[in-house]
């Protein structure tokens, strides 16, 4: 049960679209709407995949800067993160040539040393970026809890990988400005910030401070009275107070009964006064007693609570209703004969009365729409991407199953794009539809939670996601970070590690594009690169390749998965 109770402050998965990974949010408020639904006001965490590329690179640099303390790294820490980098030029400005050299090895998070490549790949799925962006989502879209903590450099990333649903963050992302900031304050150094430290007094030097000027003693425990005697004196002083109220006209009106007078005389102000009296009379009960009943009559101590008349109390409540706790305004408009201190003291005592309790009840009803927690049952409806077992069987790959060569006698089974298993209870469609990718049940869950595939795949994420429209629109994942950026201008083909550099090159060398922003911005620039695996596949899976067939029908897709699987198969059995 507790697992399905979601409280304010919890980090949770939200499902906003069945096909994309969950979004990670922190619940700030839970509000009941008029229709009885619960809305969650949430703060957004972003995944790496949600960030524009230049920012990711900056983030990685930041990490590196954190792990090494080289001067360049320090410089980076200072500059990069404070420069807005939503624009390519800005990114370019930040990544000055001195730093360019460090780009290659920069993509590792700290603490990745000793991680296998696969773990390193998965660690990236655990990194989030905090934002101050707040949105409102229906609470029914919650799909489970997770934890997000600030990464501490003493921790290894492995501790996150070993725990389900554990994420970390280092940086704060501002989605509107497209900037990254380190979530870190600064202790400033300089004479404007530090204090001058006092020197030790020298031998024989006297401290000029005079105790008497600094403080007034109002009670000392060295009094020689027993606890019993003090208690007795307190009772006596309360009795004197009760009697004083009986004599006092205004009091006898307010407190018609003896009980009420006694209660009023038992308030703390009388007790404090009694203690003061004891102290002033040198802890002699006798002389203290006589000062309780001076010639002018028995001592009467009244606090604000008692001092105020019923009509003043009514005025106060009326004012409180009107102005809230703005005591300056209340004083000015309602109770100008009181001081501000009177009002504050009265207010805090008034809070102990029944009248306040009643008010509080009214408030409590109002506050009912604000929930502290909400119960969301497990979500069991099948996802759209789930391939129902009857339909999924072997239909879809059939198109490509035309290869009649002997080696293609493989079962038309489905292969999980991520973990390569061929059997799973559930299969999910993944990626753009025409590519016909499949994920097994566990990889699908992984994808939903961590926003990536378990293994870094040669064909993997970057290509499949390429067709997905990035949130910021002008990004194409084909220019994924590991690919060099090549100039598209004829006879040039220079390569750059960063798109920003390419942009600069295009602008300066070819003068194309408007200003510094060339072709890049308007259309996705991509090129086809034959990886060693692709080249190998061309030879091995010749039967599936059928170059003529595909040359004639350029729009029918090649099932890369199948090709890949066949290659694997051939390789494994050395056929």
């Amino acid at each position, binding site marked *: 049960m507790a697992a399905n109770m979601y409280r304010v402050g919890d980090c949770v998965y939200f499902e906003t679209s069945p096909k994309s990974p969950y979004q990670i949010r922190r619940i700030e408020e839970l509000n009941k709407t008029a229709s009885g639904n619960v809305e969650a006001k949430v703060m957004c965490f972003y995944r790496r995949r949600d960030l524009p590329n230049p920012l990711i690179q900056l983030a990685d640099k930041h990490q590196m800067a954190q792990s090494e303390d080289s001067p360049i790294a320090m410089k980076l820490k200072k500059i990069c993160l404070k420069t807005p980098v939503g624009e390519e030029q800005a990114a370019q400005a930040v990544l000055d040539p001195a730093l360019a050299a460090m780009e290659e090895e920069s993509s590792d998070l700290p603490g990745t040393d000793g991680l296998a490549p696969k773990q390193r790949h998965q660690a990236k799925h655990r990194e989030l970026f905090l934002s101050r962006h707040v949105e409102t989502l229906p609470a029914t879209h919650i799909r489970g809890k997770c934890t997000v903590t600030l990464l501490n*450099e*003493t921790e290894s990333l492995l501790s996150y990988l070993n725990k389900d649903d554990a994420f970390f963050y280092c940086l704060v992302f501002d989605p509107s400005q497209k900037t990254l900031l380190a979530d870190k*304050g600064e202790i400033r*150094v300089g004479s404007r910030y530090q204090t001058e430290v006092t020197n030790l*007094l020298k031998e024989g030097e006297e401290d000029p401070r005079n105790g008497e000027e600094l403080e007034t003693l*109002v009670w000392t425990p060295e009094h020689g009275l027993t606890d019993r005697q003090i208690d007795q004196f307190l009772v006596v002083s309360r009795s004197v107070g009760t009697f004083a109220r009986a004599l006092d006209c205004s009091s006898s009106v307010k407190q018609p009964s003896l009980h009420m007078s006694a209660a009023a005389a038992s308030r703390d102000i009388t007790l404090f006064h009694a203690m003061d009296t004891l102290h002033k009379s040198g802890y002699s009960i006798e002389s203290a007693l006589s000062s309780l009943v001076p010639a002018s009559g028995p001592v009467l101590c009244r606090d604000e609570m008692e001092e105020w008349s019923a009509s003043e109390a009514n005025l106060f409540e009326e004012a409180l209703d009107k102005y809230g*706790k703005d005591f300056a305004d209340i004083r000015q408009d309602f109770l100008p004969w009181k001081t501000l201190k009177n009002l504050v*003291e009265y207010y805090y005592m008034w809070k102990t009365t029944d009248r306040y309790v009643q008010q509080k009840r009214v408030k409590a009803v109002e506050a009912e729409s604000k929930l502290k927690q909400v119960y969301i049952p497990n979500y069991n409806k099948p996802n759209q991407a789930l391939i129902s077992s009857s339909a999924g069987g072997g239909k879809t790959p059939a198109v490509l199953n035309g290869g009649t060569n002997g080696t293609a006698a493989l079962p038309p089974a489905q292969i999980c794009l991520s973990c390569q298993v061929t059997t799973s209870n559930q299969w999910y469609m993944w990626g753009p539809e025409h590519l016909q990718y499949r994920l097994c049940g566990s990889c699908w869950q992984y994808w939903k939670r961590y926003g990536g595939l378990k293994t870094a795949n040669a064909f993997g994420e970057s290509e499949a996601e390429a067709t997905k429209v990035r949130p910021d629109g002008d990004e194409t994942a084909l220019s994924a970070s590991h690919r060099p950026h090549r100039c598209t201008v004829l006879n040039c083909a220079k390569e750059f590690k960063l798109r920003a550099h390419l942009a600069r090159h295009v602008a300066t060398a070819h003068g194309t594009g408007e200003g510094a922003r060339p072709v890049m911005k308007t259309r996705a620039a991509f090129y086809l690169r034959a990886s060693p695996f692709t080249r190998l596949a061309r030879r091995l899976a010749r039967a599936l390749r059928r170059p003529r067939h595909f040359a004639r029908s350029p729009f029918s897709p090649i099932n890369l998965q199948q090709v890949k699987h066949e290659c694997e198969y051939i390789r494994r059995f050395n056929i």
Partner: protein
Amino acid sequence: MAMQPHSKKRVCYYYDSDIGNYYYGQGHPMKPHRIRMTHNLLLNYGLYRKMEIYRPHKATADEMTKFHSDDYIRFLRSIRPDNMSEYNKQMQRFNVGEDCPVFDGLYEFCQLSAGGSVAAAVKLNKQASEICINWGGGLHHAKKSEASGFCYVNDIVLGILELLKYHQRVLYIDIDVHHGDGVEEAFYTTDRVMTVSFHKYGEYFPGTGDLRDIGAGKGKYYAVNIPLRDGMDDESYESIFVPIISKVMETFQPSAVVLQCGADSLTGDRLGCFNLTVRGHGRCVELVKRFGLPFLLVGGGGYTIRNVSRCWTYETSVALGVEIANELPYNDYFEYFGPDFKLHISPSNMSNQNTSEYLEKIKNRLFENLRMLPHAPGVQVQAIPEDAVNDESDDEDKVDKDERLPQSEKDKRITGDGELSDSEDEGEGGRRDNRSYRAPQPQPRKRPRLDKDASAVKDELKSEDIKDDVKNMSVEEPKKETATNP
């Protein structure tokens, strides 16, 4: 139960009856009223009569500019709600306005808070008291020329500056849920004050307090930050507090301690996110008290005021070494403590994001840093008791070399193995003889530190030492006396 005379401490308590009536403004979480609530509880618990109670003076501008800049204090003195509009520019410059509003009596409030801490420090210097308490102080965010986080004047810095007149090294410990940035910054470059702050870190005010912030210049390694995550409970808090503080005491060897007891680290705080109970919070006071150094306790944050007053009442009782009933006594604000009207509170069921693994790693990193400290700066070698020669070196103790201590005094100073200094080793006579805290360890172990390969030995000792300390701290319960509950 017979009380052992030395477990009773002389406690001085500073309070001005005006303090509860300062009001930060509508909706502002900082409520000086909580100090008055504490005070009334103390009276009705019968703790009031066991302490020296002082009304502090109002600190003068002169006193405050010992740390703060002149123009900042001048500004605080002149700004009022009715002339705010004339000070727009300065308000921005000094960060006064939003979190730190201008309210009626602002300057007086600062004067009282600072006056209490300064008077308390002077009291400790004069050895007229062993423990001083100023719940009106503890405003640890205030900077030299800037208000911050509901704090305008940094009474702690002013108090420590006063202590430094008589103490070569002063230790500052901060258990507020927020980082004690004001104090840390003020003493960031000195090796005479070590600041140790336990706080929530990460997307949290004031944003400072990273594990890697360790001080600068001469003060490098003299700032210790323990960044924590949501949900710290009593057990994990103690598991990190005890070893760190023991190690700090051992390596830094302060002669006076200031503890900021911000109560926003309690469970259910309006601004906090820890899960400590009053007992767990008070445990820190108890642990620090056992080192037997001149001890200044100040308040700080704390925004669920009924729990703040519970906490500070309990901590006053801990300072006094007096046990108090869980049943709250009747007082003017009794209704605030419903529905249970008990002193102690229960933790919530929030999850603790601080795994033992995480705390362990933090601890080890901090130990590494502490190992970088030169052993007890400014002091050469500790006295070796077996030789019975007091050859403590010059610049800490300005003791007249000719004046020998009576043997009985010296005997008292030898700390037994399992005993944590509750000894009253300061003689009467007002001698300025503030000895450092010495870790309660078998003496032969002290020696190898002087050897050439001291560091190796130290490493080897390290883990054992700490275990010893932890054991020592938890074994010995202080003698307590039950107070009558009038």
